[in-house]
């Protein structure tokens, strides 16, 4: 049994907690968050040890083996460092850290610790993306020439059915590391790396429609370092959208064909929910394990990434996403920021 501490119980952290509770071989021992309401919720789902400060959770590190972290970006480095030094395996939400310097420190800390470490690059676990990667690897579309990846959403402006204001740290570049590019673009750039390998930035344009200190949109063009593949990344926080509508797509253009995620995601998410929900219901009746969140389609990837991470911990494999992946993604983002700034000045 892997004993887990969940640090940070915001929207993502709470989702990770709920997923941990459904995973076989995982026991949630403790949680930490500054919100009393979140801690109360954790207690209501059976977590016995709750802490208002994650440092207190880490002081009791002998009771746990692994931490799952979903903290504001600017807290990642310190929390990861303390957890690794306490001898714990670490799963952290993206971005791995706010800048390249911090990411490099994390890579070194991970290497030194010898612990399992994974960054939450959940988009790699979306069913359509997995299918596209398999098809590409099998050569179905020939050699990859151009990849277009886009996601336009509400970003931090989205809120659930309980309205709550956006936390201030999102709009403080020192705390967030940036805006839409480091938030959503992080995933899109990681997907380009997933399909086409390492990359460099050819072009970068940031949008500031909202007049905030951080960008609310970005278009970045990438070139693969190891092939002729090019990438177009288009991300934004400026669109009013509500789940189940989700403005995300990947198109892989090869020299022998193309693949579009639009053809692979369910056409009707309500019908999909009904189908997957029925399947889970039957699984439950016959005593089989359900596929948590499969009815939501996109949210299932959060369960799958954690399942993969804990699998790696228990079977001693290397996770699909390493600290180096986190570093390389942030390197590209920083390069895009710097390129835009340089060209804006000129």
């Amino acid at each position, binding site marked *: 049994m892997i004993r887990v501490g969940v640090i940070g119980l915001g929207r993502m952290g709470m*989702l990770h907690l709920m*997923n941990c509770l459904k995973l076989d071989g995982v026991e949630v021992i403790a949680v930490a968050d500054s919100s009393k309401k979140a801690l109360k919720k954790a207690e209501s789902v059976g977590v016995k040890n709750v802490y208002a400060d994650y440092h207190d959770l880490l002081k009791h590190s002998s009771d746990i083996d692994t931490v799952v972290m979903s903290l504001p970006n600017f807290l990642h480095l310190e929390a990861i460092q303390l957890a690794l030094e306490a001898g714990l395996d670490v799963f952290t939400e993206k971005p791995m850290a706010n800048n390249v310097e911090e990411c490099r420190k994390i890579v070194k800390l991970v290497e030194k610790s010898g612990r399992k470490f994974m960054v939450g690059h959940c988009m790699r676990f979306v069913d359509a993306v997995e299918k596209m990667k398999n098809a590409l690897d099998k050569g179905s579309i020939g050699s990859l020439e151009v990849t277009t990846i886009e996601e336009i959403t509400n970003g931090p402006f989205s*809120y659930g*059915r*309980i309205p709550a*204001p956006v936390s201030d740290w999102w*709009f403080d570049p020192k705390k967030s590391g940036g805006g839409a590019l480091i938030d959503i673009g992080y995933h899109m750039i990681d997907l380009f790396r997933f399909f086409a390998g390492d990359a460099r930035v050819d072009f970068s344009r940031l949008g500031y429609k909202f007049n905030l200190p951080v960008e609310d949109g970005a278009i970045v063009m990438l070139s693969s370092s190891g092939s002729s593949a090019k990438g177009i990344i288009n991300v934004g926080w400026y669109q*009013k959208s509500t789940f189940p509508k989700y403005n995300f797509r990947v198109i892989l253009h090869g020299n022998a064909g193309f693949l579009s995620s639009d053809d692979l995601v369910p056409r009707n998410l309500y019908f999909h929910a009904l189908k997957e929900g029925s399947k889970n*219901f039957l*699984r439950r009746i016959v005593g089989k394990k359900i596929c948590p969140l499969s009815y939501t389609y996109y949210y299932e990837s959060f369960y799958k990434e954690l399942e993969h991470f804990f699998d790696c911990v228990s079977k001693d494999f290397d996770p699909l996403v390493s600290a180096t992946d986190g570093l390389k993604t942030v390197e590209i983002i920083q390069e895009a920021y710097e390129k835009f700034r340089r060209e804006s000045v000129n």
Partner: protein
Amino acid sequence: MNSIVSLVRTRYSLESIGSSISESLNLINFNLDSSIKSVVIKPNLCYYWDAATGQTTDPQVILGIIDFVREKCGKHVDIKVAEADASAMRTKYAFTVLGYKKLAREKNVELFNLSNDHLEEKTVVVGKHELKFQVPQLLLNCDLFINVPKLKVMRETKITCAMKNIFGCIGFPRKVIYHKYLDEAIVGINRLLRPHLTIVDGLIALGRFPVKLGLIMAGVDPFSVDWVASQILGYTPSKVRFLKIAMKDGIKNPEGIATRGASVAEFKKNLQKPKFTSSTYWFNAQSWLLKVYCKMADDVIPPFLEEA
């Protein structure tokens, strides 16, 4: 109270908006003079979605009003553009994101967060409900309080326009607490806060989708404005619950409401009304089904979809 509501067609340019505002006020015989020293303009900045989405008041309309007020009342009139924090919205960001900070700089007006004003707690009884409101005193003490709502539909109340924008003046940010009896709350706060003038931004109205309507509406009585707004949005005014409650409450009688300028039909034809009755049921049914399913299948509800 004057029950006349003017409707004026406008184009999307500052010049056209300015002249439409002037025309709409002429049609309701609303005069401004140099005795007015302090003006508060309350747009609808309910969230961070800009005017093109039909959700928030277009800064161009506020610009037009500022120019008009300065022209009539003199250059030195004190103008504040005011909004209160809401459950999910913070004015400090809304003013920036929606272009009001830029407007304030250009026009030398003050942006004011009503939630930070001196708030006085007032109790109002509407029907069976005893409602407490935090009332910003600025709105009671200024010489001219101009309400500048949007013209849009809303699942909970069918329409949201003049009276609902006054609900947005409540100083307490977590206004979601009123949503269980929203219609009563709208009527209650309108008994405490009465704008001197309402100018509706109908440049882009929100029906099922945002629609370029090109309308400026004006009236001194928010009830009358909402009565006409309901008709434009495709609802029978007497079936809009908060208007019904307002009638019962004695706020206003619809008799005597008249329009001047363009006709309601001219604007009504362009709007597609959402089917809220069925969507409300569908929305509640979805929540119920989700809860039942997750309990029976032992599945997870993403926190995003969870209710309070």
